[in-house]
């Protein structure tokens, strides 16, 4: 698992809690992940597989400015995820749908670039907060740590604690040498 760190000490809890989330998504379908794997969709309880999200244009300026922390990431888009205690994003691979749509709509030339997603942790790990990718867990991250999620990497995130979990996803295109 790729592990990096950027300084986001200017982001505090109040900024996170003030964010207005515009979508509340049930992740049980995992964007077709189970179908592609040929296994049954898990019988998750209705209350559990939920994430709240706010995207690109609906985010305040400080969120968009975080793109500048990753100047090697081209044509990037940003999302913030909020996961309440007892909720999780089920195992899945990223389809990067919005990014792919942007490329198509704006006729962006991505020759020589690979689509990736940066998962940036906006808080130190708190009790019950969990990130797992390709059967490897990251259990000691701190605020500002990030990893790179490639489109074919199965991952899941969960909040089994009692405090809200916030992360940022910055999706874009990168040269292979920038993500080794």
């Amino acid at each position, binding site marked *: 698992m790729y592990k990096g760190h950027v300084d986001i000490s200017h982001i505090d809890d109040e900024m996170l809690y003030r964010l207005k989330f515009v979508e509340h998504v049930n992740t049980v379908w995992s964007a077709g992940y189970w179908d592609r794997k040929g296994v049954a969709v898990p019988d998750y*309880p*209705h209350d*559990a597989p939920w994430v709240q999200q706010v995207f690109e244009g609906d985010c305040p300026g400080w969120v968009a400015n975080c793109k500048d922390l990753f100047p090697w990431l081209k044509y990037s888009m940003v999302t913030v995820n909020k996961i309440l205690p*007892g909720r999780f994003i089920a195992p899945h691979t990223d389809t990067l749908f919005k990014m792919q749509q942007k490329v198509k709509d704006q006729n962006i030339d991505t020759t020589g670039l690979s689509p990736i997603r940066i998962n940036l942790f906006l808080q130190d790990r708190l009790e*019950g907060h969990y990130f*797992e990718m390709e059967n490897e867990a990251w259990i000691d991250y701190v605020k500002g740590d990030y990893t790179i999620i490639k489109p074919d990497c199965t991952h899941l995130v969960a909040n*089994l604690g*009692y405090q809200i979990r916030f992360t940022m996803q910055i999706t874009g295109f990168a040269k292979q040498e920038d993500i080794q």
Partner: protein
Amino acid sequence: MIKYGKLDIDVTNKMLNDLKFVDYFQCYRQYDKLHHYYTEGNSSIWQMFEESPQWVHDFAKQLPQDFDHHVVSVIKIDPGQTIPHHVDKHFKLKEAHGEGESYRYLIFLEDWKRGHYYEVHDQPFTKWSAGEWVKFGNDDWHIAGNMGDEPFYSAQVTVLKNV
């Protein structure tokens, strides 16, 4: 003090599938923040106690024999369910056998699977193999959950040393 160890166990899928759970209940929510977020829908588990099969009772013979009394149970956490942050007080064991030092051995019955999670004293524990155990006391806060797509089975041997 948290201790870790491993038993030599051979628990098959059939043995787990044959377990007849009848108790399905919502986990205790021991403080207000948990009441706010955890519901019957996302924090319920299956559990069996002394009616557990003999192979579960036999685990007690393999553990360090530093106790006078014990009880056993098996927990099945279905996908999507969490046992939220809590401590176990071992009331029933003490009610039956008197006061003393009590501990719980949590024994993982299968190798770790994607999305299976356990945490004690803010220390996450993953990637376990079948038979590994964690010993913790009645003041050790812990969490377990299953965000994967297969059930998460564990056995508990709760022990008491009279003092």
